[in-house]
């Protein structure tokens, strides 16, 4: 049985956990002081040795990413923290910044010092105003305490941190779109190359990292590489936040070593709602192919999940029990992708527009068998053809659900409607919610 390993979430239950004082009482900013005494190259090497992989979904080794920066030419280089958490089901960065913003700020300071950056940016999803305030306050506190600003703790190192709130676009989680948005342009992905490490923000070398990746850095510096590598599996080291949502009794963030299984996590989460059967789940958010009960024991690390046909992604485990109509769930996700497609490239823009119409038709019972094939064909026209990976992500839930639950799609066609009782799947009073939604619309 795997145990929880709260590191980022260690102080979440403390009184006023977001305050600098609370964070420092728990040893916060010790790692920064230690790091400022180290040669920057040693910090980068430590992160490389720790095997920390990007926690934003792609799992690219963080230390290696830092190593791609060209040699210092005396001109600015930037660290940009991607805090534009928008993937359906993903809720790890927002709680981190809400409950322990200083772990991120400390990580930003250490990382910036390591890569030789004097101005770091945190690009936050604009809708979460309360988190924006917490983050702003944390940065202000850090400045006042001398953790940021000029000559940090007498080291001679200067760092400014800017917290920027986006305007609310899923695409701005794509790193180059994020950079364009941060520069004040329309948030759409850029052509690569040049990659951000060479020409990123303001056409200068830039490291773009996820919140959780950066927030993991202080613990690596503080507790050491050996401590970090003692957790996780051979190629997926360390701990990570697993966000359980949906039909479990205790949804929430569970910080555990990579490689933990969903069976263990569901146990920790108090089991399935009402003892119902697990029907399907997403291992890493809605952009990753669906898993079923068959994958309950698949170790949740990058390699194992990949080998089983999906992606670890952001470890956003959305759990659906047997009462859920998969067509309905997939339709809602697809509507999200249609709404959030940035519009730059044809496959994603037009494809999601079409998919949403086909799915809505199928869900309503007006579809045909040919529509199911059309879904797959349209997904084929998007997957691998779109400008950025978001288009690919939009197809995952459709292709995997048709593969796993084709008969359910066919049932919609044959019965001329949805065979499920929608209220059974709801986690709330469905009847009154429906009227409330109408009133809201």
């Amino acid at each position, binding site marked *: 049985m795997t145990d929880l390993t709260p590191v980022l979430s260690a102080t979440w239950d403390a009184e006023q956990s977001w305050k600098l004082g609370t964070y420092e009482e728990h040893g916060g900013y010790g790692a920064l002081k230690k790091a400022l005494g180290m040669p920057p190259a040693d910090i980068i090497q430590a992160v490389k040795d720790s095997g920390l992989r990007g926690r934003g979904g792609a799992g690219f080794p963080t230390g290696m990413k830092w190593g791609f920066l060209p040699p210092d030419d005396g001109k600015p280089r930037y660290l940009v923290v991607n805090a534009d958490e928008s993937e359906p089901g993903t809720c790890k960065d927002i709680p981190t910044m809400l409950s322990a913003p200083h772990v991120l700020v400390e990580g930003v300071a250490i990382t910036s010092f390591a890569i030789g950056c004097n101005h770091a940016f945190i690009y936050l999803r604009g809708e979460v105003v309360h988190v924006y305030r917490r983050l702003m306050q944390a940065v202000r506190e850090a400045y006042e305490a001398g953790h940021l600003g000029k000559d940090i703790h007498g080291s001679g190192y200067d760092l400014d941190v800017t917290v920027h709130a986006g305007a609310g676009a899923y695409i701005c989680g794509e790193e180059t779109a994020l950079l364009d948005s941060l520069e004040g342009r329309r948030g*759409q992905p850029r052509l690569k190359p040049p990659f951000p490490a060479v020409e990123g923000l303001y056409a200068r070398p830039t490291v773009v990292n996820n919140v959780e990746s950066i927030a993991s850095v202080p613990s690596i510096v503080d507790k050491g590489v050996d401590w970090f590598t003692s957790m996780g599996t051979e190629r997926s080291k360390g701990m990570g936040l697993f966000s359980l949502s949906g039909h479990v009794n205790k949804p929430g963030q569970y910080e555990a070593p990579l490689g933990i299984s969903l069976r263990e996590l569901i146990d920790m989460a108090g089991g399935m709602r009402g003892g119902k059967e697990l029907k399907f789940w997403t291992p890493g958010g809605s952009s990753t192919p669906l898993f079923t009960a068959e994958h309950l024991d698949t170790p949740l690390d990058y390699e194992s999940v990949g080998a089983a046909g999906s992606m670890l992604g952001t470890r956003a485990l959305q759990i659906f029990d047997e009462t859920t109509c998969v067509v309905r769930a997939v339709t809602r996700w697809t509507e999200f992708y249609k709404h959030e497609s940035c519009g730059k490239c044809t496959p994603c823009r037009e494809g999601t527009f079409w998919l949403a119409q086909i799915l809505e*038709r199928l869900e309503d019972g007006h579809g045909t068998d040919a529509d199911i094939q059309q879904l797959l064909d349209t997904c084929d026209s998007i997957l691998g053809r779109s400008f950025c990976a978001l288009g690919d992500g939009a197809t995952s839930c459709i292709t995997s659900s048709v593969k796993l639950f084709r008969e359910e799609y066919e049932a919609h066609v044959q019965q001329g409607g949805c065979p499920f009782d929608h209220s059974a799947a709801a986690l709330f009073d469905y009847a009154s919610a429906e009227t409330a939604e109408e009133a809201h619309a």
Partner: protein
Amino acid sequence: MTSTADTATSEAVETVTLTIDGTEVTVPKGTLIIRAAEQVGIDIPRFCDHPLLAPAGACRQCLVDVAAPDREGNVRAFPKPQASCTMQAMDGMIVNTQHTSDDAKRAQEGVMELLLINHPLDCPVCDKGGECPLQNQALSHGRPESRFIDVKRVFEKPLALSSEILLDRERCVLCQRCTRFSKEIAGDAFIDLQNRGAMQQIGTFNEEVLNFDGYEPIGVAAEDESGKAFSSYYSGNTVQICPVGALTSAAYRFRSRPFDLVSAPGISEHDSSGAAIRTDHRRGKILRRLSDNDPVVNEEWITDKDRFAFAWQNLSDRLTRPLVRGEDGELHEASWPAAIARAAEGLRAAAGRTGTAADKKAKGVGVLPGGRITLEDAYAYQKFARVALGTNDIDTRTRISSDEEQAFLGAAVAGTGLGVTFSDLEKAPAVLLAGFEPEDEGGVVFLRLRKSWGTQQVLTVAPFLSRGAEKLSATLIETVPGAEAAALAAIKAGTETADALGQDGAVIVLGERLAGSPGALSEALRLAKRTGARLAWIPRRAGERGALEAGALPGLLPGGRDAASASARQAVADAWGVDGLPETDGRDADAIIAAAAARQLDALVVGGVTPSDLTADLRKALDRVGFVVSLEVRRTEVAQYADVVLPVAPPSEKPGTFVNWEGRLRGFATAIRTDAISDHRALDFLARELGVDLKVGTVSDVNEQLAALGAAGKGERVKAPTAKAAKASAGASDELVLASWHLLVDEGALQDGEPYLAGTGRTAVARLSQATAERIGVKDGVVTVSGERRSSIELPVVITPMADGVVWLPAKSPGSWVAQELGVEPGARVSVKGGI
């Protein structure tokens, strides 16, 4: 005179060799796969790709399979098809297009299907139908049947981006060619993408679309001072590069089908750039004009004036038959022989060539061909004047001019062949503009300068930073009109500006307006000598440079020869087979008009001259002079005074040559065959009637003579001017110095009959500095400007950061016809009063 090709620079180019569909091709390093494929004749379908725009990779139509060597040199296939319009060719790359790869074919068909789901099936009524890349490529690379049975997204249509450019958003495939053109090429960011997903759309700033509350556009996207949405001078190019029928022009919308049109290449008559155009006509009527691709001159871009201003030649006042004034005092249609006979009779008497005693009293003929004529016409006019009429009183410069300018043009421009080129301008590390607004007066010159934005330093000697200069990030050398000479003289060795101009390849661009600033052209020559920068003279009108080469100025003979030089005159006389050329110094245009008004001339021969463009009172001169022959396309104001009106062909109905400001010969053939004849042919008839064979009846006749004459020899040239700057004179306290130039879109005669174009012009405003406005006491935001005529100009005031003591007015915009109403030229003092 000139060669038409730039000297090729033979630098060693690093190349890569790749294989496309089994064919090996070697291309320069950095070439995109899609371009490399073109080299071997493999056509990959595309929409967003355009060779003159930065790659976007947006439409995804050009997906191909690519395998490339990795670091160890093993050729490995990319897991997904790649956009060939964004990926550069690599050595050893293997590319398989739709011709050889099923994956690529499937990918392209998939993208095409997606492009079409939201595209309306309105090809039968769409202007683009028949020449539409989407239509064509849907047929060649798409699925035969549509599988989309759902609801298409629709938009209100059309959206007027300006009075000229209309956008049907539901047809748009969002390739971003238009927005990229606007940002990258023209620098007018007035359209952009808005909203997202399937509702993403092109538009001007629209609060409703953007759901912005209370925000207003700022910077270059903002409305201009008059509150009118800003329109680009180059917006028509977006219509031409739109790969679907989303962007259309109001002038051409629903007028024609492309397959009913006959296309002919031509050269624009609107400015001195000589932009290559394509004229599309049907049953003798021009339906539209497009840009032709000429990489050394205009690339693929033209101004909106080049594109849309062609209606002038087919308005109801178009002349088709000669007119002769009858005894009733009215003009009557006449046959060509009758008209020629009447014209010859009048001119013979005025020129003193009747062979009777009356000849002694004859005071002569003045010739004003106008600045819009071809090289051949200009040559015919001057030969006609010098041989048939025996006078040097010929001047095409019916605009600001001076003796200093003539000396400058004779010494530094005429007969010098191809000088600074568009390519030189583009490559110049520094460019100094004097008396020249690149966007308003240069047209595509602006685009070339803009192409080097960020790498080129632009300096401008002007009273304020115009919008065009601002888009070039130009540095202003603030100068009161008339003080240009001092401003140029102040660029002393060792100053930053002099250092910039001292760089290899630096260029000084001089506009025709400098002629009105005493000493400026002389000073420019000194500055060029001092810094080593090259000089380029860029006049406004298409015929100006050709007229110099042809010698249609009083003091210039063909090839830049000095009319005052006996040896030059002899050389030309020998070539023409005449005894000699007139020795008396010729009058310039203003002097000809003044002489005619004073009855010191007996007759005028007038080409395309618009009286309202002149500060001199041409109407009075025409009224008083004894005999007037007019050669015109349209029945203009000059005809009111003419005794004989000879109809001549507009450029689209004749062959000829414009010489552009570079000195490049821009020959064109007849686009539309009519029975209209060129000026030179009419003059040939007239000369024959006068008993002289000028041999200027055909273009080839003229060009043979020009070739035989060649450029001036050493001793035959005009000496460079050494004029001094005029001393600034203090005027009355309510007087300001006038600054003015022609905006690109204004009320010039060649823009008549095109209301949609006119609607894109900038609204006329008067510009004053804050201090000046306070001094004169502007009331109600309006000023009244008066000059030497009884009339005045009233315009709204826009406070502009500019030289104090100066008022700027547009030269011929609605409500601001400066030459006609004020009768003064820029640099003169005008009276300015606040209020009306």
